[in-house]
């Protein structure tokens, strides 16, 4: 094994950002929130497009629901998470994350469960439509239910993670 070199580096970010002047954090966050809000409309349209594609392909009546396309579904769920700041009170991001868990674990275990997938898509649609109006406990229960579906129908992610780590 080679010897590790350990050294300090002073970056320009540290020198300039903390060197005085600039905006206060409060003002910067306020301006950034306003600027990010301008992206909400496009993000909502993209989320709707992704959910419709998931429903038509992998929903209860989906045309390709028996086709195991792990990478495509994982990528679509990831895209929903990426842009779901426009629905930050809906828990849609957590439902999409649960969907990523399901697909990732299914790929590791080479399992394909169309029912479990369809349930996840239904819950994402429900949270997109009315997640913001639901109570926090109700939303949390829905997401918790998705994790239970994955554990029951596909397997235990923690066991797979420790197997992969060893």
């Amino acid at each position, binding site marked *: 094994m080679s010897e*590790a*070199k350990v050294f300090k580096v002073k970056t320009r*970010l540290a020198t300039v950002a903390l060197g005085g002047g600039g905006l206060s954090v409060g003002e910067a966050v306020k301006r950034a929130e306003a600027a990010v809000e301008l992206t909400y409309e496009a*993000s909502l349209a993209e989320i709707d497009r992704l959910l419709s594609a998931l429903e038509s392909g992998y929903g209860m009546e989906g045309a390709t629901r028996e086709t195991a396309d792990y990478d495509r579904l994982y990528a679509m769920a990831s895209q929903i998470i990426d842009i779901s*700041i426009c629905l930050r009170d809906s828990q849609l991001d957590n439902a999409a994350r649960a969907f990523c868990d399901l697909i990732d674990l299914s790929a590791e275990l080479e399992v394909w469960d169309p029912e479990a997938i369809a349930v996840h898509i239904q819950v994402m649609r429900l949270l997109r439509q009315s997640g913001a109006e639901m109570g926090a406990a109700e939303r949390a229960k829905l997401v918790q239910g998705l994790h239970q579906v994955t554990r029951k129908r596909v397997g235990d992610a923690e066991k797979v*993670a420790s197997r992969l780590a060893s």
Partner: protein
Amino acid sequence: MSERRRIVPGDKLNLERLNFLVVDDNIQSLDIIGQALIGYGVRNIFKCETAKDARDLIERTTVDCMIVDAQMPDEDGYSLVRWVRKDAGEPNRFMPIIICTGHTRLSQIMYARDCGAHFMVAKPITPKVLLERIFWVAKDDRAFVECDTYVGPDRRFKRLGPPYGVDGRRADDPKGALGAAKEPNLSQDEIDSFMKPAKVTL
């Protein structure tokens, strides 16, 4: 050690003259991060949709901070960060890097930890959290570690010493097991006495 406190509204950050690079294959996500940076007052924002475009840019421009998506189709963000740390020229090789991810695949957890980024931030990104990570990176005084298998900031955030049974690499790492405490714990009265106001003569 690095300061990892919450930012407060009165803290100041001057990002105006710095070059930020954002790499994300999702155009909407690229737009969200770009808009947040504009709000912080950043003027020079480079955006790339692929790791390849980012490499080309890094080879010809000085970047002060890179924000990169972990999941990208042709080459993922972790691989791009490894390339920066190993093969990009100076000073870009040491640039602060924040990785964004909505989900980490089970098979990539170790790979993500060892890629050499400063911080990871969970998507969806909120402007407050992203600014806080930039603030942390600016204040980060962790040493850089370079060896055959890893190049990047020291992954140990806390000085807890190496795991039991392993000799540390730092000269000041404690050797061997520390064993049981040799002195009794402080009593509650002794602890209280530290906080008791006392008159002093100046």
